[in-house]
């Protein structure tokens, strides 16, 4: 597995290890904004947001790669009772409700369906929440609750056709092995409308990058809804239920909703008004290199690079500005792994004068959707895709 680590990342990782080996040995001077690394099983050192349930963010250096290694993929659970042990001889994916047949599929059964693979960006709905102004409560993610992974598994449609959806079905709900800590806490169950669930590209994935899923990323199988935010990508699936009435569970009806208007946004601080469930991802471009404080030398070639993706419409172009947005230049796009994947872009630069520069990056998808200059606001901190802007010093 190829890794590109900056020296700074190395120091951070080394720091986390020494902290872990010395009980109580962390410096007491950690500021509120400083974040630290922690190592969880089957994962490399990731940025710790919360430990129970785990929420772990990926260090920037991993986005120098087209495919995110399994052990570097971010982690996000909602409820503290998460699966830590799965016995594959007992685990079954149950499919039922308003169907002709009830199924109980073992992993071997799943593997006997036609296997399909594609690369898709997985991104938390709240990725970038910490950049909102005014700030909003919730997981304080920076930009790194995202990953680009080659998923393999079986089409949800094929499973549903084997069960036989009865006429009059409207929604399909998905429940995983995670459970609430108390009966009063709403279990995480998500749903898709039947028409959406029957789309060709939605799969139940049992492999990430050709290997089994890490437990913390949803072993043994999770739902993949490419182009849509990961809130729908239910981990450690156990039940698929076809419903003849609209699904009204908490995590659809109350949580993960956005203002019902074209931008999913509001004037900062205003009440939510009418809302709809979040779904498609917005278009984004992220500057990976240089990191904000990298040394850049005057009159030497320097390659600015990053990644761009959209909510399932590919990337038409990625633009870069080195002068705070006055002039935009087209970046060269790298290998195209399909409309759900991110694409790497690069822009060769040779700064002719020393001083401060403002680098910006923006992408447009194949249907013309791009990114706003100002951050759009909503009360839950979703859909963040403000044009990135970083200050660098050329010496």
């Amino acid at each position, binding site marked *: 597995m190829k890794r590109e680590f900056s020296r700074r990342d190395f120091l951070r990782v080394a720091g986390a290890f020494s902290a872990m080996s010395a009980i109580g040995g962390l410096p007491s001077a*950690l500021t509120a904004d400083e974040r630290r690394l922690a190592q969880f099983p089957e994962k490399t050192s990731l940025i710790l947001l*919360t430990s129970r349930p785990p929420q772990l963010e990926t260090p920037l250096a991993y986005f120098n790669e087209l495919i995110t290694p399994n052990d570097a993929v971010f982690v996000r659970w909602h409820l503290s009772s998460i699966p830590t042990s799965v016995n594959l001889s007992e685990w079954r994916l149950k499919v039922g409700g308003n169907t002709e047949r009830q199924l109980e599929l073992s992993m071997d059964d799943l593997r006997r369906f036609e296997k399909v693979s594609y690369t898709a960006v997985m991104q938390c709905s709240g990725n970038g929440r910490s950049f909102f102004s005014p700030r909003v409560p919730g997981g304080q993610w920076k930009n790194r609750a995202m990953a680009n992974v080659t998923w393999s598994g079986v089409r949800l449609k094929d499973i549903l056709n084997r069960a036989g959806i009865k006429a009059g079905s409207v929604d399909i709900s998905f429940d995983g092995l995670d459970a609430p800590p108390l009966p009063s*806490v709403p279990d995480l169950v998500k749903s898709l409308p039947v028409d959406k669930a029957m789309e060709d590209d939605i799969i139940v994935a049992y492999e990430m990058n050709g290997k089994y899923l890490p437990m913390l990323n949803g072993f043994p199988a999770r739902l993949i809804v490419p182009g849509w935010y990961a809130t729908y990508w239910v981990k450690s699936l156990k039940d698929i239920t076809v419903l003849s009435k609209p699904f009204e569970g908490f995590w659809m009806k109350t949580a993960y909703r956005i203002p019902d208007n074209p931008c999913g946004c509001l004037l900062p601080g205003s009440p939510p008004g009418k809302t709809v469930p979040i779904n498609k991802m917005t278009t984004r471009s992220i500057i990976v290199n240089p990191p904000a404080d990298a040394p850049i030398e005057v009159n030497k070639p320097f390659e600015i690079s990053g990644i761009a993706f959209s909510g399932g419409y590919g990337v038409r172009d990625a633009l870069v500005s080195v002068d705070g947005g006055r002039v935009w230049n087209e970046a060269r796009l790298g290998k195209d792994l399909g409309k759900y994947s991110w694409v790497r872009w690069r822009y060769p630069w040779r700064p002719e004068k020393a001083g401060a520069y403002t680098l910006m990056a923006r992408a447009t998808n194949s249907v013309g959707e791009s990114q706003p200059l100002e951050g759009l606001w909503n009360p839950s901190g979703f859909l963040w895709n403000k044009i990135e802007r970083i200050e660098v010093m050329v010496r």
Partner: protein
Amino acid sequence: MKSYIFPTIAVLILAGFAHGAPDATVHSISLPSIHIELKQGAGRQKTETLCAICHSVDYITMQPNFSRAVWTAEVNKMIKVMGAPINEQDAKTITDYLVTEYGARPSQ
């Protein structure tokens, strides 16, 4: 924020093994135990005990310094929406603690 990570040699050993394919039919992990210490202050004990029924208290320490209105709404949401078994008086103790120790400065 003062925090300690309990290493558990077991976790590191496990993490070393975990990169192979799960040949066994039973696949297990063991989660590290990470302790986060909240700031000293009136109501800290209640906050730690009651919030930690459902989640680690880094859910608190990762938040920016919110106003009383936002912290009050968060505590209410935990009780009324997320089902936390916290009575009215304890809710007030927790809210006051959060506002005092993790709240916005008057100038903000």
